[in-house]
């Protein structure tokens, strides 16, 4: 499925440890790992225990804002290693790390902006790209805030 931004939206592999996260994306909610004991947020949102204090962790909704930590404009697409394949005809597109306001950085795409205008530090907010029907996972991408 393609998005209004011209990027493909390949369906993620939903595993038992990531099912709750992806289910929430269908309703445009971004969940991040959180430890109530030490108030630590962490990524990926798959851990049962806090990587800092070992406390019992759970998923908590992030506010969906952040800033670009690093980015690249992919000019040659279609690398079959990892996830490049479905993006073969989507170049140029922006792959980026966004540092969430809560702290962790997440790998994502920056959309809704000319790739040449992306900068490190750019304030962004989450936007969800549907991979299928209304109950199917949606990809959390980011656009200028």
């Amino acid at each position, binding site marked *: 499925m393609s998005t209004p931004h011209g990027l493909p939206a390949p369906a993620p592999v939903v*595993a038992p440890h990531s099912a709750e996260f992806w289910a929430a994306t269908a309703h445009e909610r971004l969940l991040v790992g959180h430890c109530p004991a030490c108030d630590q947020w962490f990524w990926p949102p798959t851990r049962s225990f806090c*990587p800092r204090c070992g406390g019992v962790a759970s998923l908590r909704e992030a506010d969906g804002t952040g800033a670009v930590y*690093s980015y*690249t404009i992919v000019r040659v697409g279609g690398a*079959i290693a990892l996830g490049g394949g479905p993006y073969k005809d989507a170049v140029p597109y922006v792959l980026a790390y966004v540092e969430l306001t809560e702290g962790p950085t997440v790998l*994502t795409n920056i959309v809704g902006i000319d790739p040449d205008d992306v900068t*490190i530090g750019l304030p962004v907010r989450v936007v969800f790209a549907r991979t299928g029907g209304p109950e199917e996972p949606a990809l959390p991408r980011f656009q200028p805030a």
Partner: protein
Amino acid sequence: MAGKFSAGLPMPSAFHDAPELGFEIPFGTSIVPEYALAARRHMYEFGTTARQLAEVKVAASMNARHNPNAVLRKTVTVEQVLDSPMIADPLHKFDCCINTDGGGALVVVSEDVARSLGRQCVAVRGHATAVKASFGGRNDLTCTAAAQSGARAYEMAGVGPRDIDYVGLYDSFTITVIEQVEDLGFCEKGKGGPFVESGALRSPHGSLPTNSDGGGLCNNHPGARGGMPKMVEAVRQLRGEATPEVQLRDCEIALVNGIGGSIGTRMGSGTVILGREVV
């Protein structure tokens, strides 16, 4: 899992089954863009330039021109690197290693056997490995696990960066080399760009002759086994058996560092310090 994200191409095991992968694959990540993310952040934090990245390739090409077996023997200029096609900003085609077939082997023997061989041998003085995880989403892309593996290998060998005559560095991309020379203590963190720009990596007269066979950027890069040719060339340097034009005059101690995984996500590093044995 491998079949989900790789159309038949076997991936190094470092890419398999990491819990982060399911949150990365759908966004079109791949190897070059991940290293580009590290390069971009290094440029942002330290002012590293595309020209400085390019010098890593220039040095490799100048070393490779004397290697009759190198895949790329033609010397390139900084301008030619910058004019080569952009793959993933800021990495151009010439910032990327080649991919080749190839292989190598090391014969490791006891000290008794070494003494009986009647030829120049090389001793393992220090070695260490380290891994770098994503730290719950607080991964610093400007450094590698070589900072840890290098420090421990130096300690075991009882030497420091200033004692190293020759270096073999895994050079998957130009940024990989710049981060390693910093993490291994050959210059301050963040100064890898100016360091390589000085011509340090050129063999035999640079201040830190590196990959005198042309490395993975020009000589060869056999899949995920790019570390082996680095070991082979370091042993040649210590034995005085490198190509005469790049052979160091008096090579006593060499360091070889291998990087695995991706400096843009999660990675491992292995450092070996080798010393020339007195015959």
